[in-house]
């Protein structure tokens, strides 16, 4: 195996603190109540939000808040070898962590006895699809008009060839030493997801968090722009009198 980082330049030509190219779009699906699309590197993920709506089966409804259901799914053509469409152990786990990363931001008490469904469909996969999924899902929730105290944005940091790097690609994730996805509510500064696969020293961990938060800040700018483009494109300027 060759080196993954040469003179501070990674395999795909990025510096260690650089994100992959990204594109965010809101309101891409007409039938869903809210939707968003994200491209991050080779990742292509589409997110649809339905709800709040009546809960079926009725017994899972909660009297004082809404239930949030989340499905992360990789389409059979999203990988280089066909993936069976049945939800794998990994997908079930990621669905759960995404749900838990988004739940703190949704003001669930505003919608008692209802359900909100979030569907994430990975059309093409690369490293860091759960982070890209969370970033897009927050946009789709906002597009659906669900009350939330902040957006959520996620980004991974990790250790590759002994160096801390931002936003790992698929190969860096597999061959590197550590991968740490972080999701954060950018305005309130609350971390809603923190996973770590690998071993980091205290110093590396701190460095990783700082890198990931900086990546999240940049992605949040993109989120904001995507929402503004969708809703206020025809608006003359930001401040209205």
């Amino acid at each position, binding site marked *: 195996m060759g080196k993954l980082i040469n003179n501070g330049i990674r395999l795909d030509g990025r510096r260690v603190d650089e994100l992959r190219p990204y594109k965010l779009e809101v309101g891409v699906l007409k039938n869903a109540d809210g939707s968003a699309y994200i491209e991050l590197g080779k990742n292509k993920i589409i997110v649809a939000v339905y709800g709040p709506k009546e809960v079926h089966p009725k017994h899972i409804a909660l009297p*004082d808040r809404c239930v949030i259901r989340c499905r992360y799914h990789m389409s059979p053509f999203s990988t280089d070898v066909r993936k069976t469409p049945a939800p794998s152990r990994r997908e079930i786990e990621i669905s759960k962590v995404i749900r838990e990363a988004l739940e703190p931001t949704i003001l669930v008490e505003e919608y008692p006895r209802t359900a909100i469904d979030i569907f994430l469909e990975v059309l093409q996969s690369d490293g860091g699809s759960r982070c890209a999924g969370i970033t897009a899902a927050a946009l789709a929730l906002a597009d659906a008009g669900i*009350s939330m105290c902040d957006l959520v944005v996620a980004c991974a940091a990790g250790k590759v060839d002994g160096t801390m790097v931002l936003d790992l690609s698929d190969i860096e994730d597999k061959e590197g030493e550590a991968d740490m996805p972080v999701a954060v509510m950018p305005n309130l500064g609350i971390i809603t997801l923190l996973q770590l696969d690998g071993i980091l020293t205290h110093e590396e961990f701190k460095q990783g968090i700082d890198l990931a938060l900086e990546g999240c800040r940049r992605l949040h700018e993109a989120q*904001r722009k995507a929402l503004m483009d969708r*809703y206020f494109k*025809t*608006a003359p300027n930001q401040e*209205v009198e």
Partner: protein
Amino acid sequence: MPEVKRKYVIPGELITEGNYRIIANVIKRGNKFYSTRIGLAEYGQEGVKVIPLTGPYVPKVDDLVIGKIVDYSAFAWEVDINSCFMAYLPARNVYGKNFTPGQESLVKRFNIGDLIAAVVTAFDRTRDPILSVAGPGLGKISKGEVVKISPTKVPRLIGKKGSMIRTIESGTGCKLMIGQNGIVVLSGKPEGIIKAVKAIRLVEEEAHLADLTQKVQAMLGIKEEGGKEGDG
């Protein structure tokens, strides 16, 4: 005139700092106010609020809604009011207090698939909305064209004191019935309806912009009448 400042916001965006009263769609952290929805934030002496641009219909007591009958039992009809809650129209709200199940057949009044105009008489977090058809203009809707818009844009379609409705009605010769749940029923001549639908779509698209009434007037070819009534 109290000064009101406006700003386009997304969820989590800081609206303002200081001492304000919260009106709607705003959360307070410390002395900072953040938006919870996409929309137009307004803050001034009255307080802070966000007028949302997207979102579901949440029923409110006294709202006029237009709904479709989806089911019925011996006591009540079930009505789809384009919300996350199914509404109930109890038979006693239609036949009166002396209603006894079995004597009347509910289908004779409203059948499945019928469209009705009703008001919400009761709703809170713990119960589903209850409807009533007692009142002028309420009850079964037998003809007309149905248009759905986003429920958050209904206030703009009505306008200040109904100015937008009046503009569209006088410009197209149609009658408009606007449910707070985003369902609009138009009745009139086909040409008028086509024009009115276009006007409604314009309002929906540009709900966040100022001078909408003037724009709709220009589109429908109406000259400004009786001084300026502009609606922000």
